[in-house]
């Protein structure tokens, strides 16, 4: 299973990921940036949790986790109640996500691009190679890299040199 990871050592906060995401996903920004004081603007990534709080919170079954382990939002079912926004423990959905305006705005790991053999847009554009789309097992076993907060819900998305 491949997931998105951010290598903190390499992120310069240029926000190219956000613009690429917007371009590929028809103007809906699903990858947001958050400002960490003294560090810069880091991407906030959906972890596609194993037991997602947003799916549990959704009263209309609009949020689902499919067999590819991707958490998706069904725009036809979404009423914009923002229960998922409140439920997300990582603040991924709340980062300026405008549900009513862009019901499509949920990261699905660019599944259509990946099916064509391409990388997700944010990974393909990242100027420093900080964003990576790799197998979870490979990332956790790599030498010289530490996954930060690996005991949290789902998988952590941040890696760093020790």
């Amino acid at each position, binding site marked *: 299973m491949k997931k998105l990871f951010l290598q903190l050592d390499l992120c310069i906060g*240029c926000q190219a990921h*956000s613009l*690429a995401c917007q371009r590929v996903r028809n103007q809906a*920004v699903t990858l947001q940036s958050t400002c960490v004081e003294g560090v810069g603007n880091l991407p906030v990534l959906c972890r596609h949790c194993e037991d997602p709080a947003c799916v549990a919170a959704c009263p209309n079954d609009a949020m689902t986790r499919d067999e590819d382990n991707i958490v998706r939002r069904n725009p036809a079912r979404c009423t914009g109640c923002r229960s998922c926004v409140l439920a997300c423990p990582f603040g991924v959905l709340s980062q300026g996500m405008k549900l009513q305006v862009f019901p499509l705005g949920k990261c699905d790991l660019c599944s259509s691009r990946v099916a064509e053999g*391409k990388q997700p847009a944010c990974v*393909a*554009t990242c*100027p420093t*190679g900080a964003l990576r789309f790799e197998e979870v097992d490979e990332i956790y076993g790599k030498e010289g890299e530490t996954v930060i907060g690996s005991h949290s819900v789902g998988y952590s998305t941040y890696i760093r*040199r020790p």
Partner: protein
Amino acid sequence: MLVQKKSTCMLCSVGCEFIIETIDDEAVNLEYDKDNPVTGGVLCAKGNYMLELINHPLRLIEPQINGKVVDWNEAIRKTSDELLAHREKSDAGIILAGDASVEDAKTAELFAETCLGTGRLAIYFATGDDTVQKALTMASIPNRAAGLNDIGKSTCTIAVGNPFEVGPVIAGKVLKARYARRGNIFGVISNKENMTSRFATIHHYGNERKLLSQLLRVVADRSEGDELGLKKLIKELIPATENPDVVKLGEAFVKSPSSVLILETQDPVKAQLASAVVSVAGADKRLFCVNTYGNAKGICEAVKSTVSVNEIITAVDHGVIKTLIVLGTDIVKGIPGRNIEAVLEKLDFLAVGAPFGNETKQSANVIFPTALWLETEGIYNGKHLQPVIDPPGAALPYGDILRQLAEAMGKALPQVTPEPVEAPQQLNEETLRVILKESMETVPEPAVQSTVTQFADGSLTSNIQWLQLQERDAW
């Protein structure tokens, strides 16, 4: 049928390549050029907007006279008549955008000489004055320009200013080199903490001119050869420095087998100092210049006789210039700190050629739609680029518009073939004396012109959909 065409981004000088996918000559998608040997297909925030630039809703497609849509011949006739009528009474000027091809810039130079008879041609580069132009010509050292791959392999990199902000793709290479081996040096000299200095192993904040001249002294003390014969003078003019950071950086720069100095060029003095540092440090040291206009370097080398935009605006303000042609740039928004709109009202005639609707267009008598660099053939920064799509509607390249105007005025301009680039001047004792004197003066640092939110000439800033989304608060 889906056709993939490669092109190069001209929104800064790094020159990242990308693929435009077209169907029936209409650009439908931008794809990352994964197999590119230099960048690996990555693009920064600006590059991601290439498709929106091509298919922008504000693209101009028809010529206009005083707000009314007309055909080409009428617009050309009107402009040439006005230029001829005013030629005896007053001066005329022409301002050209920095994203023009080398051929177009040469054509503009010819047009200014033969048709306007004044030679008043200004090339617009981010600031109103010609500092960027001077800096670019001064920062070139023959055979010492570094490529992106050189940065990726260097063991000692020194950055001056904030190159990560202007060209985030450079950051990828710099950080790759910095983390490749323990002990690799990445030094930053800047006037304040910025995006680049956060990643430095050694950084020093202060006046960049002063710090660069201190670095020059340290490098002159430590290096062996003296190919320019300037070391004696450097030691005489610059006092020895005690600054530990600069000493460490200078030593590492000389000792390291592959060193690159990255300079974000805005200031001619810094450009001269940086090229002096690289020349004095040794034959294997390289210089990488970052600037906000992709084709600025190519134009600066090809076109010699220019004035600055500020000089033209001042001449308009004093009533010397009464007719003006502005091609491709938005001078109303692009020059901060001057009320350009009021100045433009003093003109008798203003012709604007622009790819997009902009503020300058509001005061124009005649408007020509122009093509972007993705739609014209030409030499950009040493690369011969082919058009990926046809220009929309009646839009034409700057050079074609000027040739048509010249023909209507009874002069024929030839198709320009750019001449081989002359080798830039070597640094000599006299220029060194001047720049060192200037480097001791504390001047306000020019601000970085290109950010994520600011495109080439600033004219598109308010029209980017992403920014509009940011402003629209749905909550």
